[in-house]
């Protein structure tokens, strides 16, 4: 991997922040955008901006073709069986809400849903709302101090009342990779469906939805070098056919009269209104870009960054890493003893280092560790060891100033 060439693909990496070169370690919140994706967005608005699936005119046809090509790119990337199993959404949160809404008619009082202790609020709250409206109960798979899920406890939670299990592929707060393959197999034994939140996995891993045999898989383009406001939901055809539409409107209908409306076939049934056309096309371009670099290469390089960052940060006395396991993505969540993560984040920002501080939308995890939050440095394939050195000296300075 030619890291200098890759870095030159990302114009933002040239900028300065607070008079220092930007060190962007907040990739888990959103990734940066390569020039090819920016060009794709400019090209769309400059050359073929038109509404899709509606016009007979050439421009509309061109935009429709590009949009549907992007859907095919996503299908191929996730190895879904059919293109119609890929639904464009506005992001991970939207995809989860779509599925939760769909299940509201399929659940009854006393049914059970299982969630992991490691979830992002977006993979907790929609299900709580679903439980409230249906009378179903939410059960939690506990985790241990390393952020590893207790699979024994999971076995015991699974019963014939279990209807749905949802879990993230990679935890956003700790970076831990969850054993989703095992989670899915076991859920299927009791006839439950599984939704995997891939928001944090997809920047690092190429998931194979058929091999995983997962029922639903959701992700956001903006964490995979794509634009904000667009994402994908994969659903097995038999599930997507069973779920009712999410929103009503144009695009999602076959025929409308005031007496009765029949819905369009998959995937359009779930895509009401004019979608984020440009975003969807750019999502496809982002996936192409990442595949050109190669996920195996990305994995190896990020592993190097993770190992280096972990060992360098651990040299700082009083620094504790949360969720330090062998099986994790390039995310380091840590605290300095006796120092609030917010203070550390404020100081390192002054040196141009962007990290996330706080509870990372995963308050239950912070409650488990009895901390107000962590400092989270999340790496991407365009980061370097040199940048990690900058982070380490910035953290050392913060420690000196704050203790």
């Amino acid at each position, binding site marked *: 991997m030619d890291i200098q060439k890759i870095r030159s693909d990302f114009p933002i990496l040239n900028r300065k922040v607070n008079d220092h070169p930007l060190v962007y370690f907040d990739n888990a919140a959103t990734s940066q955008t390569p020039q090819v994706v920016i060009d794709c967005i400019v090209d769309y608005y400059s050359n073929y901006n038109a509404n899709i699936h509606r016009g007979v005119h050439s421009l509309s046809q061109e935009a429709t073709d590009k949009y549907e090509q992007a859907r095919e790119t996503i299908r191929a990337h996730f190895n879904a069986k059919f293109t119609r199993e890929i639904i464009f959404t506005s992001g991970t949160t939207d995809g989860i809400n779509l599925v939760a809404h769909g299940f509201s008619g399929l659940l009854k009082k006393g049914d059970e849903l299982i969630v992991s202790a490691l979830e992002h609020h977006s993979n907790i709250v929609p299900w709580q709302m679903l439980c409230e409206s249906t009378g179903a109960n939410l059960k939690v798979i506990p985790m241990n101090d390393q952020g590893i899920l207790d699979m024994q406890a999971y076995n015991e939670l699974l019963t014939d009342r279990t209807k749905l299990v949802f879990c993230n592929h990679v935890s956003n707060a700790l970076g831990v990779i969850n054993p989703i393959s095992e989670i899915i197999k076991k859920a299927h034994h009791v006839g439950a469906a599984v939704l995997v939140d891939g928001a944090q996995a997809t920047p690092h891993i190429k998931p194979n939805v058929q091999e995983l045999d997962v029922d639903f898989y959701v992700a956001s383009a903006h964490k995979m070098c794509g634009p904000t406001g667009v994402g994908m939901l994969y659903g097995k055809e038999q599930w997507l056919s069973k779920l009712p539409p999410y929103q009503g409107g144009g695009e999602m209908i076959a025929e409308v009269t005031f007496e009765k409306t029949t819905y369009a076939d998959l995937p359009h049934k779930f895509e009401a209104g004019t979608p984020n056309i440009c975003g969807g096309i750019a999502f496809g371009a982002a996936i192409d870009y990442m595949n050109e670099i190669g996920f195996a290469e990305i994995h190896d390089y990020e592993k190097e960054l993770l190992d280096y960052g972990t060992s360098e940060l651990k040299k700082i006395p009083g620094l504790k890493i949360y969720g330090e396991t062998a099986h994790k993505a390039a995310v380091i969540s840590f605290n300095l003893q006796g120092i*609030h993560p*917010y*203070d550390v984040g*404020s100081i390192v920002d*002054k040196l141009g280092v962007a990290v996330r*501080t706080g509870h990372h939308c995963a308050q239950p995890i912070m409650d488990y560790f009895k901390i*107000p939050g962590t400092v989270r440095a999340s790496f991407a394939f365009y980061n370097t060891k040199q940048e990690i050195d900058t982070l380490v000296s910035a953290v050392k300075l913060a420690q000196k*100033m*704050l203790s």
Partner: protein
Amino acid sequence: MTIQEIQNEIVDEFSMFDDWMQRYEYMIELGKSLPLIEDRYKTQANIIKGCQSKVWVHAELQDDKLVFTADSDAIITKGIIAILVRAFSNQSPQAIIDADTKFIDEIGLKEHLSPTRANGLVSMIKQLKLYAVAYQTQLN
């Protein structure tokens, strides 16, 4: 001293520093002089919402003047609230209501004023002013 005079004094002190590090170090120092809120007032109700770190503020009227005590679990936030308390404490509620907060900008802490900044300096100022409004109606 009036609020304006105290603010000018703070601006003068900060003008001696020429980089952010000195400003932050001074702010951390000021945090140590913050009149601390009594533990019994560190309640959920006294936490200022909109801050990533916890900030508690308590106000009480002493001889028609409003006196603030506060604390935070983050050091920089404690410094910021200390600056605000220094500027606003021991003043009449009306003076606090009328005061402007341009000095924050002048001491180079503008970035903390941004509503997107999770420490919620804006929320702190609003809370101090809300206390002043509440006590002002009591005085009337």
